[in-house]
């Protein structure tokens, strides 16, 4: 990982609010992060933690209304995407940033052939001719490991299995050689053996193509195996961020620590009882003025209810948003 290189993507202080009839929902609260070239950033969090909304916000993919980006800055290739017009954003989507979504069943348009859907961005962004787009599509399908690519271009999404469909989605996302690939829980809907296939594929593609990847997941195992850096989100905020080994070896936020412990292990001794994070994730009905995790936190103290902790670096490229100093508690 080329440390110190200029980030391809730099997000600062992003805030996204959903205006609903029942009141505002502060889905993303002052999220800042960057993505270095060729890096794979894993984003972990439970549903409702704001991880997908953050990524959707970057390129204006949220339905507006009800969503509204209140403030922030998203720098990509030297310009602020939040200040870009619709046409500019469109030129970025698919061209510079590719997306892979969770459910390959519904994310592909059922009535168009796979070939059509791969060729679409090629023709729009790259201005390719029909035949060149076709050749590139075949190439892409081969790249993502779909056998008999030429013939399968004419097939419809429903003729592919789940794993194959996700490969097609990846092919589409990679069509225009984007600098950044955002994968939103791309393996959650897949079986473990298929997930293993996709993970292998992504590793391979990274080596070959070298794009930067943001990988959203709730599965710590997946992150552990693939990511360079991890960002943990909770309640619409980044609570902890750092290199993957650092996070797993030395988790600083009580939430990360608890999360790591709730997952039963496949090897080693069986726990009599699983460790549990009691309670429910918070409602994001108001702009947070306190730590969103305090209600479930075993270490919470008065300050946690008074002040929303800011992210502070704790060394090794590792930072955490917590008032509690984990070093005090750990021997």
């Amino acid at each position, binding site marked *: 990982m080329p440390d110190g290189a200029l980030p391809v993507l730099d997000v600062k202080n992003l805030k996204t609010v959903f205006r609903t009839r029942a009141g505002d929902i502060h889905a993303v609260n002052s999220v800042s992060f960057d993505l270095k070239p060729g890096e794979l950033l894993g984003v972990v969090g*439970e*549903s409702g933690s704001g991880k997908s909304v953050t990524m959707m916000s970057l390129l204006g993919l949220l339905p507006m209304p009800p969503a509204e980006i209140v403030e922030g800055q998203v720098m990509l290739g030297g310009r602020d995407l939040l200040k870009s017009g619709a046409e500019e954003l469109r030129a970025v989507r698919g061209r510079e940033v590719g997306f892979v979504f969770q459910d390959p069943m519904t994310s592909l348009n059922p009535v168009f052939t796979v070939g059509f859907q791969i060729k679409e961005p090629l023709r729009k962004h790259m201005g390719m001719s029909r035949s060149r787009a076709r050749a590139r599509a075949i190439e892409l399908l081969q790249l993502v490991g779909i056998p008999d690519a030429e013939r399968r271009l004419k097939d419809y999404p429903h003729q592919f*299995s*789940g*794993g*194959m469909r996700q490969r097609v989605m990846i092919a589409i996302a990679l069509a225009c050689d984007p600098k950044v690939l955002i994968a939103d829980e791309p393996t959650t809907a897949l*079986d*473990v*053996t*298929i*997930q*293993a*296939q996709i*993970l*292998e594929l992504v590793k391979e593609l990274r080596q070959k193509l070298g794009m930067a990847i943001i990988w959203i997941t*709730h*599965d*710590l*195992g*997946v*992150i*552990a*195996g693939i990511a360079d850096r991890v960002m943990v989100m909770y309640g619409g905020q980044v609570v902890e961020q750092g290199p*993957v*080994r650092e996070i*797993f070896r030395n988790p600083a936020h009580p939430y990360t620590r*608890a*999360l*790591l412990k*709730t*997952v*039963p*292990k*496949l*090897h*080693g001794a*069986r*726990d009599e*009882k*699983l*460790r*549990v*994070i*009691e309670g*429910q*994730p918070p409602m994001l009905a108001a702009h947070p003025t306190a730590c969103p995790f305090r209600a479930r936190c075993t270490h919470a103290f008065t300050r946690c209810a008074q002040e929303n902790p800011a992210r502070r670096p704790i060394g090794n490229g590792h930072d955490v948003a917590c008032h509690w100093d984990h070093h005090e508690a750990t021997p």
Partner: protein
Amino acid sequence: MTAAPDMTAALPPESARDTPTNPATQRRKLVEVKNLKLYFPIFGGLLRRQVGDVKAVDDVSFDIYEGETLGIVGESGCGKSTCGRAVLRLYELTEGSVVIDGQDIATLSPEKLRLKRPSMQMVFQDPQASLNPRMTVASIIGEPLDEHTNWPRTKKLERIYELMDAVGLNRDYANRYPHAFSGGQRQRIGIARALALNPRFIVCDEPIAALDVSIQAQVVNLLEELQDQFGLTYMFISHDLSMVRHIADRVAVMYLGKLVELAPVSALYANPLHPYTEALLSAVPEPDPFAETRKERVVLKGDVPSPSNPPKGCNFCTRCPKVMEICREVEPAFREYAPGHFAACHLLEETGTAALNGGMRPEHNQTRIQQGEDA
């Protein structure tokens, strides 16, 4: 209609039911499944004649001992959920018998089956879909009571509150509708409903698949507590191998409608006999970057074949990294290779059972497994 005879009318004091689940003592088979087959017919042709079957569950046999948890694992479409539903005869069986507590429910008349239902219950996968959005929590939990008792309202309500306490739901929520709850709470409602009639046997059909990681642990712990408290027997269906390892006493692995391996949990995880089990275990990503980078995975090629047209011979032969000629021709038998450790694989038959006895293989959790054709 009164409560079925094997049920206590109300909950006994907790201590009385608090029996240990450790199966070291004399164990009784509560559920015996023999040669269970469940085919869904496929119709085709001009006259809509039956042209084939989807063999969702194909000749599966296993037992579940009283008080234990049998885990069923497998990928989607392997027939594990169908198997669970068939065991409770939510589908009409094509063949085979399911004896629960001495009664073959495959042959019971509808009315008798109805009377038997209180003793066997189910917890469903999708806590959103398994609760009727137009009923309150109280009426959802109370539905089994409405069907099987003629208790007065107050008694039912009392029982509903008891159940809500038992699963950790605030009594104040009784009049809310399911959509007002989070996934974990909904699953608690589903569990409370399953417990309402004091069942002895509960099929848990992927009860945690739709939940967040932090909530999964809560629900699994709850299930375990309830098992201890009421001496329940579980059939725990899941695709999450690590969670199954945590909760189950014995584990059965299914592939394409058939059992490929069945063993006590420690034996299975430490010493998987079937190549599929091996592959499955190796595919599970571990939340440990150090282990992950060292480990080399068995990555299976391709997809699961269609259950309407399974391959000839061994079901797994199309993807097996250790496939042999015989696998494509002959279906392997499901045999016991070590005490309580069953598997169906030609490889085992060839290499002999002795070599594969438990504990003979060293350090399985970090074994470098030869990759198949995929390398």
